[in-house]
């Protein structure tokens, strides 16, 4: 019912953001509601009881009044009778002795304390003083009263009077003594004083319209009043009614007063003002109200305290949760064992869990999972911190970058499990040795050490050496004995870099240098390294641009067939015309392209370009293309060849792929498989630079090359040096025996040509015949030479 409204009061739009306030208000509101209910019930009961008791009191008072009324009549009648029976008085009346009668009446008035007394004789003469209206009425009353009636209340122009009639017997009636008591205010007050309760007695009479009114019209015509008076007709024992009287609402009782005839001329109204009647209950109501107010105050205080005991831990939890939200470590004090306490406990566990996970996340963020060492991020931060510190104190910070040599091959051959174990071992070893520094794993097989050495300037070098010395002993992992070597680059800040990134980069450069120095060494950073690195970086940028903008082109060096005396092919040579630096040799940019992974793209372009040119040449002229080991090993190389052939329409037999022995360094089997695949397509395979590097005759056995190219280092000295001539001779014989052609490179003069021709070399290349020409000049060259040869 109204609870909903109350709840609305305690909830939005009246939002109390504090739980305690809301609880307190709810409790107080509920209590107030029940209190109001109790008060209403109490009020109703009090009123009911009050009305009943007032009615009962009034009824009792009514009965008492009846009795008083009768007593008064009897008393007056007694007084009158005494006179009426007095012999002398009777004598006087009988003899019509007016002076005597009047003096007797005066005497009686005083004795009985009545204002009006009369003697009426049988003929209706009235003796005694009084208002004329009254006298006229009194004259008629005695003879008109019914038998046995000795009193009557009459209404006259002079007011309402109560008449007491006492006959004068001598011994028959010879007259009457009549008392007329005015029922005026004085009489009413006297009557009221006899009551135990503060009643108001009022005499009513009928007005011209036969409505009951009071003298002076203080009580005006009122149907309810008429009903009340008429009610008392039969029994005279009417129930009290509630009336609206001039002095306010009152409980009232009416008594019809018998008059001369059958209809009463007057009535007595006993009224009990409601406010007076209920006055005694006010203290009770006040008591209830005060007790209620006190109760509400107590409940407010109590519920507030209770609500606070409930809400305080929740507020604490709330605060802790906020703190946790902002990242602070929050803990709540657990009190008791109720739900909130359990919640607090859970919160603490949760908070601790979050803190623990956070710690682990932070650890993971800054540490390497494999070795447990700090990672690159952490390392970089530490370098930065150390640099800052060092700058302030004027000290130095050394950074060592360490990289395992050939670690990839260990991973490939022994498996990642062994590789991981080795990395852990190396890490542990570094921690042991570099106990004065911070060891981190920077990624892969790369480690770093920070040395914030303050005193010992030689410490970086000594540490590097100690590490390298330790590395001489092989590591043992799972019954494998693995020899490992390691290169170290050292940079010392702030001289080699005031900034962590620069210092790290320079240490890396030093490391690269150490690797170039042949591995298993350490190298300090030098500014020159930095310059070289910058140059290379520029080259890298230019190389990407070159491929996109077509700065590459192919030149062709003719290959002259010594038997047919004609050009039977061209070796395609890659040229890069740098817009600023001019021509850059393949030896300079190919390694860079290989490092950048651009080599496949470049190699593919070369193949397509070579085929495109060659298709326009005579059918007997083939084109040779150099393929780097990286390109050769790249997946889909055979497919690239196929595409170049099919797009250009060049016969496969006119394409000659030149590879070096180094392709065999890794996985000879797959290389041979690929070579056979190319052969089956019809492509020719030439082994380039034969005799240099790790030349192994076994390669010649494993694959039947179409041609062996004799390196120019042998050709250069063939005419001067017998040993060179012997080697060339041996190579040519070997090739001939294996049914392979031979091409001698770098032929520069006629002596060399003569020697080669003598030894049975199949073809030659070199300045003696022609330097490399541009593609557009190939056909001219072919025509000229053919003519010349012819």
């Amino acid at each position: 019912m109204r609870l909903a409204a109350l709840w609305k009061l305690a909830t939005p739009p009246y939002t109390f953001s504090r739980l305690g306030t809301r609880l307190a208000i709810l409790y107080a509101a509920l209590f107030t509601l029940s209190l109001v209910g109790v008060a209403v019930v109490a009020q109703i009961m009090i009123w009911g009881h009050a009305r009943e008791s007032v009615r009962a009191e009034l009824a009792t008072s009514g009965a008492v009044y009846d009795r008083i009324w009768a007593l008064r009549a009897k008393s007056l009648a007694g007084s009158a009778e005494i006179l009426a029976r007095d012999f002398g008085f009777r004598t006087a009346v009988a003899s019509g002795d007016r002076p005597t009668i009047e003096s007797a009446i005066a005497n009686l008035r005083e004795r009985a304390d009545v204002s009006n007394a009369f003697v009426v004789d049988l003929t209706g003469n009235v003796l005694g003083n009084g208002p004329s209206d009254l006298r006229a009425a009194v004259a008629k009353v005695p003879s008109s009263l019914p038998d046995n009636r000795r009193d009557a209340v009459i209404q006259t122009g002079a007011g309402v009077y109560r008449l007491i009639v006492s006959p004068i017997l001598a011994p028959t009636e010879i007259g009457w003594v009549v008392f007329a008591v005015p029922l005026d205010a004085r009489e009413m007050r006297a009557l009221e004083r006899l009551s135990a309760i503060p009643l108001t007695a009022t005499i009513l009479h009928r007005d011209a319209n036969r409505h009951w009114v009071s003298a002076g019209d203080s009580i005006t015509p009122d149907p309810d009043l008429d009903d009340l008076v008429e009610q008392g007709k039969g029994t005279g024992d009417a129930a009290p009614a509630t009336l609206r009287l001039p002095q306010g609402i009152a409980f009232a009782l009416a008594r019809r007063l018998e008059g001369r005839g059958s209809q009463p001329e007057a009535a007595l109204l006993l009224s009990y003002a409601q406010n007076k009647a209920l006055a005694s209950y006010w203290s009770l109501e006040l008591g209830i109200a005060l007790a209620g107010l006190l109760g509400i105050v107590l409940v407010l205080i109590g519920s507030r305290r209770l609500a606070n005991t409930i809400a305080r831990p929740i507020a604490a939890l709330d605060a802790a949760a906020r703190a946790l939200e902002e990242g602070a470590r929050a803990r709540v004090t657990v009190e008791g064992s109720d739900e909130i306490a359990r919640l607090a406990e859970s919160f603490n566990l949760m908070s601790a869990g979050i803190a623990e996970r956070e710690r682990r996340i932070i650890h993971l963020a800054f540490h390497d999972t494999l070795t447990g060492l700090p990672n690159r991020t952490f390392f970089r931060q530490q370098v930065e911190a150390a640099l800052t510190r060092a700058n302030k104190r004027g000290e130095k910070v050394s950074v060592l970058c360490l990289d395992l040599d050939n670690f990839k091959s260990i991973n490939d051959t022994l498996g990642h499990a062994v590789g991981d174990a080795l990395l852990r071992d190396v890490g542990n070893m570094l921690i042991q040795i570099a106990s004065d520094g911070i060891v981190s794993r920077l990624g892969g097989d790369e480690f770093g050490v920070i040395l914030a050495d303050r005193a010992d300037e030689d410490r970086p070098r000594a540490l590097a050496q100690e590490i390298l010395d330790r590395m001489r002993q092989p590591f043992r992992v799972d019954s494998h004995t693995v020899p490992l070597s390691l290169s170290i680059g050292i940079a010392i800040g702030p001289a080699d870099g005031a900034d962590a990134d620069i210092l790290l980069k320079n240490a890396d450069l030093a490391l690269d240098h150490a690797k170039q120095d042949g591995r298993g060494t350490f190298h300090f950073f030098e500014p020159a390294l930095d310059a070289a690195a910058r140059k290379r970086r520029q080259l890298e940028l230019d190389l990407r641009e070159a491929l996109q903008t077509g700065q590459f082109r192919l030149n062709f060096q003719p290959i002259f067939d010594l038997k047919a005396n004609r050009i039977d092919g061209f070796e395609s040579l890659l040229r890069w015309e740098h817009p600023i630096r001019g021509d850059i040799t393949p030896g300079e940019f190919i390694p860079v392209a290989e490092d950048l992974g651009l080599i496949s793209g470049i190699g593919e372009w070369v193949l397509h370009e070579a085929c495109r040119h060659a298709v326009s040449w005579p059918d007997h002229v083939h084109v040779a293309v150099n393929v780097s080991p990286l390109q050769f090993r790249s997946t889909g190389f055979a497919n690239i060849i196929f595409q170049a052939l099919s797009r250009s329409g060049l016969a496969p037999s006119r394409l000659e792929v030149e590879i070096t022995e180094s392709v065999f360094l890794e996985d000879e089997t797959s290389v041979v498989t690929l070579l056979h695949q190319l052969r089956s397509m019809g492509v020719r395979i030439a082994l380039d630079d034969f005799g240099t590097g790790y030349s192994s005759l076994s390669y010649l056995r494993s694959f039947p090359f179409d041609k062996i190219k004799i390196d120019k280092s042998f050709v250069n000295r063939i005419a001067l040096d017998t040993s060179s001539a012997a080697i060339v001779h041996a190579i040519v014989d070997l090739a001939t025996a294996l049914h392979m052609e031979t091409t001698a490179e770098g032929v520069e003069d006629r002596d060399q040509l003569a020697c080669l021709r003598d030894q049975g070399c199949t073809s030659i290349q070199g300045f003696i015949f022609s330097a490399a020409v541009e593609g557009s000049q190939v056909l001219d060259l072919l025509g000229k030479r053919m003519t010349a040869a012819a």
Partner: protein
Amino acid sequence: MRMIPALLCALLVPAPLHAATVDITVHNANGKPIAGAVIMIDTPRKSSAPIHFTWGTEIAQHNILFDPHVLIVPVGSTVTFPNRDKVRHHVYSFSKVISFNLKLYGREAVPSVLFDKTGIVALGCNIHDAMSGFIVVVDTPYAVQTDASGHVQILGVPAGDATIRLWHPSVRAPGNMLEQAITIAPTGFAMAYSVRGK
């Protein structure tokens, strides 16, 4: 006050000249017979002969009562008031006919009073308020009280015009007396009176 003559039946019986019988019945409004009512018939011609009633002229006080309660006496009678009680009485009357006081007396004296005017004399005792008696002083021989059944028969009343009077203490009329002019037929006169009284 009204008198309601209720003519029941006029039994016209031939009677001797000059004399007729009058039958009167008295009852109250409820039809209850009224005993002790005094019926008096005044004829125009008064009898010169002295009037004498059989019941004498004594009214005694006996058992705190007047005995008889009502005494009819001819005018000029002297009535004696013998006291037959052990207590004394103070007999008085304030009647207009006569006013007298017989102050306290016992058995030793028999006071008497002369009644020389006609009328109703109310008697009382100043000691005993309840004592009430009446002396009806008449100048007609035709006066008698109704019996227990409220009936009275008067013989030998001269026929012709007459006035009939009815008295009883309970009659509500001046002097408790009703009066009616009647004509008495030679055959007699009969009338039933219904009186309204106390």
